[in-house]
């Protein structure tokens, strides 16, 4: 518990400056808008806030569906990707195939998959969940595969010299050394799931941040458009941030890890 608090504390200390800058920036924009210095398509921050104030239900009614759709897709992908990654590493013969399939799925654009999935799965949240899963699987797979191979030969030799069994080696060496890479993958995949879900909503959904965006655009409701953009970034950032926080606590011994492509 203490380590979680100290992590939060550290995170706050590291991020207060950008936050402060953002608040100052918002203040400047507000002032400029009041003075009629800004073009029509940039709303006053106060207007955007007013949107939330006047219709908090609207925000939550749209934020919630997108959030759970993205989360569902994300977790489905996580389970499949970690399973596939573990399989790929333990059965060398499947390694190339699994990796290539993942790359191919990753390269097919949402443009193509969304309408096709709509055709196959019918209308409803399942299309967005599926796309969120498809959009986020690749980093998770790469993270799993890299992670499970991360233990270097010296460490494996150590386990051998200590006469450790296979399951002991897995538990004491392979899994802990995989964690940095695994979390890096999970971290990167979270925004992808959110953005995938929102983009998929553009192709036809009646509720969600993406739908809200479309509706606002059609009614030329500038503050609402900016609000939906803000919500998009917040949701994507929150996904990333939550995992980053979990990572700091779980992988307490390392700095950032870069995933190779």
């Amino acid at each position, binding site marked *: 518990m203490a380590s979680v608090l100290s992590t939060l504390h550290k995170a706050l200390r590291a991020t207060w400056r950008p936050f402060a800058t953002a608040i100052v920036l918002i203040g400047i924009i507000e002032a400029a808008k009041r003075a009629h210095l800004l073009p029509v398509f940039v709303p006053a921050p106060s207007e955007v806030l007013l949107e939330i104030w006047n219709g908090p239900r609207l925000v939550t009614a749209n934020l919630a569906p997108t959030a759970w759709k993205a989360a569902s897709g994300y977790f489905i992908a996580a389970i499949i990707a970690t399973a596939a990654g573990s399989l790929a590493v333990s059965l060398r013969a499947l390694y190339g195939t699994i990796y290539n399939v993942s790359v191919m799925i990753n390269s097919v654009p949402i443009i193509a998959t969304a309408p096709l999935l709509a055709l196959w799965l019918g209308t409803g949240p399942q299309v967005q969940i599926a796309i969120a899963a498809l959009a986020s699987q690749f980093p998770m797979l790469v993270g799993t595969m890299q992670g499970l191979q991360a233990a270097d030969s*010296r460490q494996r*030799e*150590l386990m051998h010299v*200590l*006469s450790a069994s296979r399951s002991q080696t897995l538990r*004491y060496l392979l899994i802990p050394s995989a964690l940095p890479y695994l979390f890096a993958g999970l971290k990167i995949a979270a925004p992808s799931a959110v953005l995938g879900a929102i983009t998929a909503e553009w192709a036809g959904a009646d509720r969600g941040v993406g739908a809200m965006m479309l509706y606002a655009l059609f009614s030329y409701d500038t503050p609402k458009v900016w609000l939906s953009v803000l919500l998009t970034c917040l949701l994507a950032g929150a996904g990333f941030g939550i995992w980053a926080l979990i990572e700091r606590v779980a992988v307490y*011994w*390392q700095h950032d890890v870069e995933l190779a492509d």
Partner: protein
Amino acid sequence: MVFYGRGEPVIALEKVALQVPAGQFASIIGPSGCGKSTLLRLIADVMQPHAGAITLGGDTPRAARHAHSLGFVFQAPTLLPWRSVKQNIELPLDVVGRRSAKRSARTTAELIELVGLTGFEDALPHQLSGGMQQRVAIARALILTPDILLLDEPFGALDEITRQRMNIELLRIWSESGTSALLVTHSIAEAVFMSDRVYVMSARPGRITTIIDVPLERPRRLDMMRTPEFFECVNRVRDGLFGHEQIQVSTPREPVEAY
């Protein structure tokens, strides 16, 4: 011991025999590629020999490894980065299962004190210097009170000053623990300073060419490195390493070949 790779098979070690009496400290020294690391790994059952036998106090290496009578210190400390000092030292205990760890293993606290790291029990490896990490590795190798301590150039990555200090430390730890020790090194001074006996190896194929007994008294002190006796041993080792070709040509002294 033959390695098969591309091209010709490489005979890494041929006709090597050495005996380390119990409780003694021996070194193996030789040029790069002479197979000294391979030899150590054969003893530790990391590799298996193609011919010949290795016995450790009557056991085969595999039996010794399973009985945990071996302690191995690698060239790099190879600590698990997510475990604290205390947890790293106790890794062998976790693997073996604390209840079945034979003999009263030294307590972790004793070992931490022995290697001089009191106060650092909860530190993570990345917070320690290279020398400190190696000390943790040594403590880890000792936790199951092994009969034999195998060290593969453990101080190679350290600077000269730290290295000499670590040598003293290791000798102190070794004498207090009562194990036999076999050290692989490429430093002549280290080999002579630490050991009761130095085995000199040559390369391709790897074999032991000279055996030198070091009669210096224990406990060793750094100022012994200035004595004529020390220099004499060093020179004999040096001859063993570099001079034996000349020996063959100039003087009819037979190279001491182990059988």
